[in-house]
């Protein structure tokens, strides 16, 4: 096969549930890998918050909507001879198939590299996939179509109980179910046959409760195959692997089982003809009676093949970080014709990619679910993935890796000790049988109440091995409660991964006292290397994890260095944008000749690639984790300074703990951060500067809240301080709701005050700025299309601010330029404004009022967007400023950066369809999971691209549901008329319908109940959203 000279790489688009940052990581790796091979790379992605869309990663970059139409035009223009479809998630695969179907690939003589289009089809189509597996002798769950009740019993006898009964052609499987006995089978089948319009059911062997095991496999064009690693899902079959707690390598598989599944994996990747990476999922029999198999004695294989992903996946990103084996990089090289033994292993520098990593540690991944933001959402985890991101932790024991992973989740104060208050009255065992995001905690709580691991295994299907390990943690908790703390006990507790905070709680000490004792007794972590080879070869990888063992391998780096604190798991409100900034910060440090150390806990990101920084610590981003690693980097009594501006709220929250511990912070001080976050100190500052802000106060008690709201007048905007993404932010209309809010918020805010501000219904705008302590550079102003009250992360944002008047922009520039130095900002800051405009606005009339909503002395989520649109290297400048340069030194004038000759629209992307029971209504609490960008020469074209990329455009015809709050009705009149004129059929809830009828337009009235169904609400939101809270 000849090497292609120009390759088109399709990115995965916006971050949605099921498709997160891992594809930025894989895409960036692939681009760099192909450039090393001298291949010209053309990249298309709609997501600006990615490293892969940075200049210098690919040769030609298109930030465009991912549609067949647009990609065809790019192909026509760029004339690539190869398409790499396997690195952009499901989006990339689907587009590749669509491009093949539409004849584009043939027309332009393009090859699909790595995975043939036919293989994609075979893996995606259940029937084709089944046939293929059967043809190579690999077991698939037995199934058979049944039309007669009498037949069901004999079929079930053959395929075995329990049996899944799936009626044909019923919506969402209505009328089906699982039969555990033959009596149940008869009952369920009768119902299923009746429910099916064609009187047909599919009986399939149920694998509920079987072990779920995954293999990451690589194959090259010479048919060399290896497995990178395997992974065991702690949650058994039935829970989506993206929602499972996963451990690598497998813990409960014998060598016979491990090799049996490994051999099957190689057979499957060969049969599929994949050249690159592939993920294969198996169900493995957990018990003797269903295994019908003895080691060495043969018999029917005790496993089934469940799924194949013929591409780089979330699991491959995890496997890459878990082993140090760069799957995407190797897959890209294989796609252009290299064989595994021709690709050097950069970890050892001596060996090649043709080997299988040997791990000498245990890796635990825990999904990060969005239920903290959606308390009313359905928390059960099943076949539909709900997690927005994940954390990974590495240690030398399972318990410690799990403990660190839980710390990495950053669930506020929810450590492993956390228990739901409801469990005081209800037996937590009741929650063990149902997989939810809280099951881990319910299991621990049950163990504390004396449940046995065996009993809990029966209820949950989780292998007893894991439950015994959890029990070891619980036993240690008991010892810490009962015994006095000794060096041995403390060391044992640390080896089991208990954090200082939990040890403090149990042994009745403050976390700081525990740390003091650890230092006193020399109970300190050492750092070990992830080297792909279990220390068999000398490796140069700067990739470390902490553990309580004897030998430390991470000797403090010499010379000037700084720590960049990452942003942890991808969650709503803190997405990939912050990883973008952290990565750029590391690069900027290196450019300035300072060694960059990164700490992060997210396996999906570019920042946790070991070659992004000079040293990577894969650690929880909490006080303990960061202070320990800073301690390890301390030479002559001083640790390296930390940069906390780029890791979102995760990093900024560490400013005070680090300052208290006398650890230096680079850039804006903890003091500056505190002034910005502390409502009364901030108010004082604004008053001194003569900058207006909406009236309000910080309160700690209900009474104070009520009196404040009384004074400033409802509606008010309430939120806890020190949070990101508008977490728990609400617009409150009356005292009753305020009491409810404040009472609940006390738990969330954990001792921090609650902020109450007058809700101003104006135009929202924001600026990102770089301040060197004296001068301030403002790369751009972004105007929000939604009015104030919708979280800025959920708003459409436009650059430049075309709807704003010069006096309004001027005021924002003036305020920003004064705020930065006054706060002592060194580095990045983001200021959110609300503009109250006199009606009507006249050039000679009174100026608008511009209020400061908030100042964040850190990189915001718009940094990648604005950097890309304006061309100002914002993170690099900020890092230079932190290192002591002035803007003048860097050749930048203060003030607003010249407006670029383009329009850019940033649009949010939601994952609401994945979350059942979640209110899709937009408000001050952020709900979007990702974003896209549309850029063009006109605003309209840019907006159209952004909406297309976000899949938010209205269909050209159809029905539109309107359900409006009274206060917004008058201003909607014009819009409704336009919609009717455009030929849409109008539907509305009672009040709105009455208004439309009064406008002399036809309208169909729908009951509120129907209008609450997710599909309707979504459509309604697209039209008009009035952010009035409840």
């Amino acid at each position: 096969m000849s090497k292609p000279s120009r390759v088109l790489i399709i990115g995965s688009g916006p971050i949605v549930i099921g498709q997160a940052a891992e594809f930025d990581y894989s895409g960036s790796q692939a681009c760099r890998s192909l450039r090393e091979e001298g291949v010209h790379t053309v990249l298309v992605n709609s997501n600006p918050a990615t490293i892969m869309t940075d200049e210098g990663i690919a040769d030609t970059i298109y930030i465009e909507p991912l549609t067949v139409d647009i990609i065809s035009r790019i192909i026509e223009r760029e004339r690539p001879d190869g398409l790499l479809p396997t690195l952009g998630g499901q989006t990339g695969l689907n587009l590749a198939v669509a491009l093949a179907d539409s004849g584009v690939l043939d027309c332009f003589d393009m090859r699909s590299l790595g995975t043939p289009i036919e293989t994609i089809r075979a893996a995606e189509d259940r029937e084709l996939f089944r046939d293929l597996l059967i043809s190579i002798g690999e077991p698939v769950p037995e199934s058979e179509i049944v039309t007669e009740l009498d037949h069901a019993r004999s079929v079930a006898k053959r395929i075995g109980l329990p049996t899944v009964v799936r009626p044909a052609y019923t919506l969402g499987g209505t009328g089906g179910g699982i039969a555990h006995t033959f009596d149940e089978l008869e009952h369920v089948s009768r119902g299923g046959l009746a429910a099916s319009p064609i009187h047909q059911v599919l009986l399939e062997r149920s694998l509920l409760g079987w072990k779920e095991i995954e293999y990451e496999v690589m194959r090259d064009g010479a048919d060399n195959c290896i497995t990178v690693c395997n992974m065991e899902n702690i949650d058994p079959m039935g829970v989506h692997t993206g929602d499972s707690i996963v451990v690598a390598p497998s813990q409960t598989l014998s060598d016979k089982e491990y090799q049996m599944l490994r051999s099957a994996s190689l057979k499957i990747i060969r049969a599929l003809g994949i050249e690159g990476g592939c993920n294969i999922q198996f169900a493995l029999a957990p018990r003797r009676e269903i295994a019908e198999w003895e080691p060495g004695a043969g018999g029917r294989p005790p496993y089934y093949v469940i799924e194949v992903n013929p591409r780089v996946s979330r699991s491959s990103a995890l496997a890459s970080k878990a082993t140090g084996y760069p799957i995407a990089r190797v897959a890209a090289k294989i796609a252009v014709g290299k064989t595994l033994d021709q690709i050097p292993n950069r970890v050892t520098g001596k060996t090649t990619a043709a080997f299988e990593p040997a791990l000498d540690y245990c890796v635990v991944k825990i999904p990060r679910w969005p239920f903290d933001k959606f308390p009313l959402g359905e928390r059960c985890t099943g076949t539909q993935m709900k997690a927005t991101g994940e954390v990974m932790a590495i240690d030398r024991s399972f318990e410690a890796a799990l403990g660190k992973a839980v710390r990495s989740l950053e669930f506020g104060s929810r450590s492993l000790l956390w228990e739901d208050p409801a469990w005081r009255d209800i037996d937590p065992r009741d929650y063990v049988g149902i997989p939810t995001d809280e099951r881990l905690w319910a299991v621990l709580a049950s163990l504390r109440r004396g449940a046995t691991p065996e009993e809990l295994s029966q209820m949950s299907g989780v292998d007893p091995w894991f439950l015994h390990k959890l029990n070891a943690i619980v036993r240690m908790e008991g010892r810490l409660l009962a015994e006095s703390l000794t060096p041995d006990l403390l060391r044992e507790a640390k080896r089991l991964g208990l954090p200082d905070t939990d040890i403090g709680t149990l042994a009745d000490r403050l976390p700081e006292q525990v740390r003091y004792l650890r230092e006193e007794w020399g109970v300190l972590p050492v750092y070990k290397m992830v080297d792909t080879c279990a220390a068999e070869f000398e490796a140069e990888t700067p990739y470390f994890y902490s553990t309580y063992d004897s030998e430390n391998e991470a000797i403090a780096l010499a010379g000037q260095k700084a720590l960049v604190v990452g942003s942890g798991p991808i969650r709503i409100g803190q997405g990939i944008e912050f990883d973008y900034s952290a990565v750029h910060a590391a690069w900027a440090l290196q450019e300035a000749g300072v060694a960059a150390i990164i700490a992060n806990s997210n396996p999906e990101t570019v920042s946790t690639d070991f070659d992004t920084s000079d040293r990577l610590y894969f650690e929880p981003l909490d006080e303990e984790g960061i202070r320990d690693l800073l301690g390890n980097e301390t030479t002559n009594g001083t640790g390296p300074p930390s940069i906390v501006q780029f890791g979102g709220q995760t990093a900024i929250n560490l400013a005070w703990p680090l300052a208290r511990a006398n650890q230096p912070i680079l850039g804006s001080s903890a003091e500056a951060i505190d002034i910005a976050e502390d409502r009364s100190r901030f108010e004082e500052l604004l008053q001194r500067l003569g900058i207006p802000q909406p009236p309000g106060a910080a309160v700690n008690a209900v009474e104070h809240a009520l009196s404040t709201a009384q004074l400033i007048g409802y509606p008010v905007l309430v939120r806890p301080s020190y949070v990101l993404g508008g977490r728990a932010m609400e617009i409150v209309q009356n005292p009753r709701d305020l009491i409810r809010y404040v009472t609940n918020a006390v738990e969330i805010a954990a001792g921090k005050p609650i902020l109450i501000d007058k809700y101003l219904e104006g135009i929202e705008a924001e600026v990102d700025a770089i301040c060197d302590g004296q001068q301030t550079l403002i790369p751009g102003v972004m105007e929000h299309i939604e009015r104030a009250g919708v979280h800025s992360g959920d708003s459409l944002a436009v650059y430049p601010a075309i709807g704003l008047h010069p006096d309004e922009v001027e005021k924002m520039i003036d305020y920003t330029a004064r705020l930065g130095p006054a706060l002592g900002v060194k580095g990045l800051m983001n200021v959110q404004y609300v503009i109250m405009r006199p009606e009507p606005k006249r050039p000679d009339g009174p100026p608008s009022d511009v209020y400061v909503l908030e100042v964040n002395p850190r990189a915001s989520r718009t940094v990648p967007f604005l950097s890309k649109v304006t061309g100002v290297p914002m993170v690099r400048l900020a890092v230079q400023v932190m290192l002591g340069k002035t803007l003048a030194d860097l050749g930048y004038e203060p003030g607003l950066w010249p407006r670029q000759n383009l329009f850019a629209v940033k649009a949010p992307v939601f994952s609401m369809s994945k979350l059942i029971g979640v209110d899709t209504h937009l408000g001050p609490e952020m709900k979007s999971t990702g974003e896209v960008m549309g850029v063009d020469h006109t605003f309209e074209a840019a907006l159209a691209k952004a909406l297309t990329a976000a899949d938010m455009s209205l269909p050209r015809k159809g029905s539109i549901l309107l359900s409006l709050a009274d206060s917004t009705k008058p201003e909607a009149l014009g819009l409704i008329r336009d919609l009717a004129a455009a030929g849409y059929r109008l539907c509305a809830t009672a009040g709105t319908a009455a208004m439309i009828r009064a406008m002399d337009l036809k309208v169909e009235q729908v009951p509120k109940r129907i209008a609450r169904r997710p599909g309707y609400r979504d459509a309604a939101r697209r039209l008009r959203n009035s952010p009035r809270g409840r």
Partner: protein
Amino acid sequence: MAAKALLVLEDGTIFEGKPFGAPARSHGEVVFSTAMTGYQEMLTDPSFAGQVLVLTYPLAGNYGINRETVESKRIQVRGLIVHETCNLPSHWASDMTLHEYLASQDIPAIASVDTRALTRRLRTSGVMMGAITSDERIDAALARLRSVPSYGDTDLVREVTTDEPYEWERSSAAHRHIVVVDSGVKYNILRLLSDRGCRLTTVPAITSSEEVLSLKPDGIVFSPGPGDPAFLDYQVATIKSLIGKAPILGICLGHQVLGRAFGASTFKLKFGHRGANHPVNDVATGRVHITSQNHGYAVDSDRLSSDIEVSQVHLNDGTCEGLRHRTEPVISIQYHSEASPGPLDNVYVFDRFLEIIEKFEPTKGSAS
């Protein structure tokens, strides 16, 4: 049981941990394996005789011990060093814990050792002798270590080989007779050949060529085994006189002895090849195979007779991984094609050997 146990290396390095298995003293050459599964197969692999095994994977014993999963009739290692041992294993096929298994066969072990530090020590200094103790002072343990014969001083094959010839579970469908010269054979070699329709007679390592031929073999396997191949010059002679009489397959130690029979020398590797992830390049096809390995010595192919060629090479360090005679039906491999533990990618070697036997038939007929 004592609260702590020590591994004392001959260079004076001490690793401390918690004793498990049998409360006994022991000593041996300390070696590490990077295989992540298959501790029971490794413990019972005769090639580990005379050695104290360090597992680099930190969690041992997770799936317990199963009576079937053995590679010889007993535990062969002299001691086991792990980071953590599991006393509550979970597997439907488990019959006992790792601790119970070791204790039942009088083998001491140490857990809670920084096995990565130990591995790094062995990697940089090379493998060396070590003593396991929980009731001696360090200097006493060191003195004991100096008084015992070193790993390279004894012919360990004599300790593990069968005393008497025996037949492996005879399969009625067997149509080939293979004689396995047992220098420490793993049962899986016998199982895999038996599965392929072979009748198997396993004979002691010192069996002469006449005795072997008197069994009228269709093929002869020289098995893996422990120790320095230089001790096995008695087998070198046997091999030399068997060339051309029947197809020969040498595995691991058998490969090294074969190399010596063709003029090559053997040498000790600094820390050996032990694990389930070793890439081997097939010289003829260019293909890479992932292999299971367990050897501390290798064939130096420089002085190899021109009759024989190097057929396979280790991708990482270029050492000789396979030999093939240019004219006679003789092949050998340095790795463990029988896996157990490790990847099953190389069982094809047995098929290839049987093909060679198939082709050899006419000449054999004329020779006898």
